């Protein structure tokens, strides 16, 4: 059952990513990017990462996609389409080579797979790992500072002179 769900989600994800790169209309590319974000949330669910799936929907589908659509609306290049530059063929070669290398190394490596069942609701364990003893409390606080700096930087950059 989970296998069928994975294959459907993987096909839709690859199709949506190709649509982002290949579609002529930038606005439609953004819409298929939103579809890709939703599908990746589904892939997280097949990996038993329920909290991360909800975070993905909240932040990517909710916030980042709105930001990107607003940027497309503010810049009038929607009508000019989504052209490729002069580097199209070299870019294709480089990404195909990288894909081949990644697939070969992922398939040929002997991964150490644990047979333990995954944690079912992950929200409480993630909270315990983040804020508990020997956890990630310093990175959490640093990321709060990073977000504050990003918001201030965006406001300063966008402010009318």
């Amino acid at each position, binding site marked *: 059952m*989970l*296998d069928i769900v*994975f*294959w459907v989600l*993987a096909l839709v994800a690859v199709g949506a*990513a*190709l649509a*982002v*790169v290949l579609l002529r209309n*930038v606005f439609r590319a*953004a819409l298929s*990017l939103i579809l890709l974000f939703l599908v*990746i949330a589904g*892939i*997280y669910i097949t*990996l038993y*990462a329920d*909290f*991360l799936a909800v975070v*993905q929907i909240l*932040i*990517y589908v909710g*916030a*980042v996609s709105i*930001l*990107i659509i607003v*940027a497309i609306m503010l*810049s009038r290049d929607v009508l*000019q389409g*989504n052209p*490729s*530059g002069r580097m*199209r063929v070299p*870019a294709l070669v*480089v*990404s195909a080579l*990288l*894909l081949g290398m*990644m*697939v070969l190394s*992922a398939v040929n490596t002997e*991964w150490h*797979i*644990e047979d*333990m069942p*995954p*944690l079912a609701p*992950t929200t409480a364990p993630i909270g315990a*790992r*983040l804020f508990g003893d020997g956890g*990630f409390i310093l*990175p959490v606080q640093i*990321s709060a500072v*990073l*977000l504050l700096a*990003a918001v201030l*930087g*965006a*406001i300063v*950059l966008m402010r009318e002179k």
Partner: protein
Amino acid sequence: MTVGLEHYLVLSGVLFSIGLYGVLAKRNAVVILMCIEIMLNAVNISLVAFSRYVVPVFLTGQIFALFVIVVAAAEAAVGIAIIMTIYRNRESVDVDKFDLMKW
């Protein structure tokens, strides 16, 4: 054949390569930002897959993916602010015309 770690890693690699092609080949700066988001999401898939299959009880990969999402949100906000500032000055989001730091 049941779906295992390799399937998720290959899917992540395919998405990463598509995003890399978009970043290298496209001329619209907003589309390049979208392709960077695809690449970050591909990395997140492989992190969560490692967390599920290699260390199922420690959740380290999921926490790492959480921090990647935080940094990606900050990057999207600042990146779009930079693109809109350049658009305001140059009336274009074509990266081939962004040569104002070239001497």
